[in-house]
């Protein structure tokens, strides 16, 4: 029978990538004499090799075999663990990842890198003068080939003398099954020898007293027979002889017969040749079809392994909740069958219970998508290690809060921005050791990654104890680039926000403004597309901290419902700073349409939402209006609304998928009463307000200053 195992490829791939991560992180922490770690690295490589072999990923198997051999030598203490070898193993891990990805996507891989590492591995292995496992495996292969050649359809008779040791059964072997296996090879005659059998009283039922003489007529060769006895060969006396070799009947045959036999043999050989040929067209096909597949694979996007491994306890909890939901449902439907008003209390109770069930169910389902952020943090020890090597700096990476959970989708998309920020911290944040020493710091710089929950959000902090960002230089650069006017006065955070300006990213890296401007606009855009924001804090000589604020999930949003005219809007809680009632004293009209509100020591422009969206409402007076102060891009604005309604979690429905993109709106949701409410896109609204104000200014040709 044939068993199709291809359905297990995805889980093998997932496991391999996990194994590679484990290898990488263990290698980074590996110290000489740490046997347990070497063992676990070896195990990971070993499993990958085993699985790759099963699925015919031969390149992976071959390469991993070298890695495994090196690790095996370390494991057995035949080789000392030195830094050079660890570096080779680290780049081997990269190669294995490349090879596995290539096998998965059926694409080509960076052959230069792999062959370079292969060479390094082989050289390293050769330098230790131990016998290579490869050699012995090659010889076994040739033996196999040789026995393959012998194979033909000629029936031979073997005499097998089999005397097992008395305690053969203690290793779980049973001669009966061995004979069954032999019988599958051909025609088997069994003769038991009972001469050793003791008197009944002396028999130990756990011992074996019999021996056997077997005659097997088979087309199989001696190797095959030996294989059946493979597991017991050292626990028995085994003699296998070819009966025909003893009898030697051939010389008596007539010439005619001999000719026939020769013809037969030729036929047989042809058959063998045929059967041997048949697989090869297959392999040819696969090789020739490869380029085609390659283009196909390139056309479609890279295959993401999109399964989640969920703890059994989470699933059990879900099943439990669904059970409760079913109970509630049946209770309610029974109640509905014959409803009378005096049952109203039971109905309310039932609905209350339904609410509770739904809420818990929702929370549990969301929790399934949650993964600890260590999945995203895992790659950083290696990254920092490599970058530190490259830049010649001494850097310690401190990771905190790696168990903080985050939605899988958010996690996947935050990876690259984080890499960018960490890379910048190494490249430009941490100073070279001599500079640090000169400034009275320890030679070793520290970069820390920290993740924690705050409100309904997750905060990720990337901080370094490097030189900090020079505010003046950033400002000067921004002026030079024409991003700000020289006479503008900006707060520190506004200055640091300039780093995220698109124009800034073209800044040449040579300048020593900590070079933080490279590609930061992309980082910010990625974070914003996740509904998050990024802030910078920095002190000269002490270091910088980039704080990324993200929603826990993209599917559900914590929102504040507000009323404007007849419409209900939802403001994401993440962007709300505070809500307040306007105090007339603090209103400051700057120009015709622009109104600023004094919020402690800041001036916040007021945006009447009804104006932006052209709604009719009775609440047009700014005095005593309700303001929801929101923040985006480091800019605070006060949204003027009619009324504050409830705070609730809403399920986000994409407007783009269901309708089209609308400026100022990031999505929609369906409220409890069935009506649709729009979710406000705060950065978009600020943009809208700006262009609205500019238009107004131009048309009225008033000279005013817009903040």
């Amino acid at each position: 029978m044939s068993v199709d195992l291809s359905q297990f490829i995805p889980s093998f791939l997932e496991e391999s990538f996990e194994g590679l991560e484990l290898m990488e992180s263990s290698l980074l922490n590996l110290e000489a004499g740490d046997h347990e770690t070497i063992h676990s690295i070896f195990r990971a490589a070993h499993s990958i090799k085993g699985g790759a072999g099963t699925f015919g990923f031969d390149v992976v198997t071959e390469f991993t075999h070298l890695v495994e051999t090196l690790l095996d030598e370390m494991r057995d203490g035949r080789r000392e663990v030195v830094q050079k070898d660890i570096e080779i193993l680290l780049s081997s891990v990269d190669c294995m990842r490349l090879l596995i990805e290539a096998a998965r996507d059926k694409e080509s891989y960076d052959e230069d890198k792999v062959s370079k590492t292969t060479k390094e591995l082989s050289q390293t292995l050769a330098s230790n003068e131990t016998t290579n496992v490869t050699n012995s495996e090659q010889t076994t292969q040739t033996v196999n080939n040789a026995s393959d050649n012998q194979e033909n359809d000629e029936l031979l008779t073997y005499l097998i003398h089999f005397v097992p040791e008395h305690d053969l059964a203690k290793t779980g072997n049973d001669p009966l099954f061995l004979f069954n296996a032999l019988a599958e090879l051909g025609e088997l005659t069994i003769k038991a020898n009972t001469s050793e059998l003791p008197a009944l009283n002396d028999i130990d039922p756990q011992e074996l007293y019999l021996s056997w003489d077997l005659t097997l007529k088979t087309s199989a060769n001696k190797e095959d027979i030996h294989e059946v006895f493979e597991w017991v060969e050292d626990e028995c006396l085994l003699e296998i002889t070819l009966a025909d070799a003893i009898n030697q009947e051939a010389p008596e045959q007539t010439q005619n017969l001999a000719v026939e036999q020769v013809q037969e043999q030729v036929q047989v050989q042809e058959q063998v040749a045929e059967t041997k040929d048949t697989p090869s067209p297959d392999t040819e096909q696969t090789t020739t079809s490869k380029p085609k597949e390659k283009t196909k694979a390139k056309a479609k996007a890279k295959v993401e392994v999109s399964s989640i491994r969920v703890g059994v306890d989470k699933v059990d909890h879900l099943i439990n909740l669904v059970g409760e939901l079913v109970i509630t449902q049946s209770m309610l439907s029974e109640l509905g069958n014959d409803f009378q008003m005096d049952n109203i209390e039971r109905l309310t109770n039932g609905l209350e219970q339904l609410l509770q069930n739904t809420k818990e169910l929702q929370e549990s389902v969301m929790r399934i998508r949650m993964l600890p952020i260590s999945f995203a943090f895992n790659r950083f020890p290696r990254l920092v290690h490599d970058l530190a090597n490259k830049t010649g700096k001494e850097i310690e990476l401190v990771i905190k809060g790696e168990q903080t959970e985050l939605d899988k989708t958010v996690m996947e998309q935050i990876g690259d921005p984080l890499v960018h920020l960490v890379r910048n911290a190494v490249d430009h944040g941490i100073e070279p050791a001599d500079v640090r020493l000169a400034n009275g710091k320890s030679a070793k710089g520290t970069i820390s990654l920290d993740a924690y929950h705050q409100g309904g959000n997750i905060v990720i902090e990337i901080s370094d104890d490097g030189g900090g960002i020079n505010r003046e230089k950033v400002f000067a650069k921004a002026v030079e680039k024409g991003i700000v006017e020289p006479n503008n006065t900006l707060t520190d955070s506004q200055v640091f926000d300039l780093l995220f300006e698109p124009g800034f990213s073209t800044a040449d890296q040579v300048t020593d403004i900590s070079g933080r401007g490279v590609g930061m606009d992309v980082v910010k855009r990625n974070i914003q597309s996740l509904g998050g924001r990024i802030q910078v804090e920095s002190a000269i000589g002490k270091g910088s901290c980039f704080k990324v604020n993200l929603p826990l999930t993209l599917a559900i949003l914590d929102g504040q419902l507000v009323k404007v005219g007849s419409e209900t809007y939802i403001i994401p809680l993440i962007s709300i700073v505070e809500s307040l009632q306007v105090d007339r004293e603090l209103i400051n009209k700057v120009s015709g349409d622009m109104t600023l509100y004094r919020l402690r020591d800041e001036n916040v422009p007021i945006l009447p939402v009804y104006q932006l969206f052209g709604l009719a409402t009775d609440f047009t007076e700014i005095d005593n209006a309700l303001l929801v102060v929101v923040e985006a891009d480091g800019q605070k604005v006060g949204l003027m609304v009619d009324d504050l309604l409830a705070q609730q979690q809403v399920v986000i429905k994409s407007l783009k998928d269901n309708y089209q993109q609308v400026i100022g709106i990031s999505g929609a949701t369906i409220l409890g009463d069935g009506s649709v409410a729009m979710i406000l896109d705060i950065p978009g609204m600020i943009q809208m307000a700006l262009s609205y104000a500019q238009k107004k200014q131009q048309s009225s040709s008033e000279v005013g200053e817009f903040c």
Partner: protein
Amino acid sequence: MANVLVVDDSNSIRDMVSFTLKSAGYQTVEAKDGLEGLAKAQTGSFDLVISDVNMPNMDGIALCGELRKLSNFKFTPILMLTTESSTDMKMRGKAAGATGWLVKPFNPEKLLATIKRVVR
């Protein structure tokens, strides 16, 4: 039909062995390392144990030794599933009471053919 205990720390290998055995009509119980294997071994009766060698917590050789100490595993066939074709590893397995070994890469047809040497 025979009940088989499959012990391997690699989910995919364990799944595949189990799947292959089930598709041939065997029943299987799975464990992810030697310790779990030993615990599960005591919860039922098994006609065959197939175990990986390299595993965390308790490796296959140690598991084999422990199982042989249990009265109902005295004669149960125990096969080691391993990529290590070295004689040394086979000897160590034998010494611990292993019945035989299956060499990876895992091949379903070969597995089914081979285990016929020890179970019905």
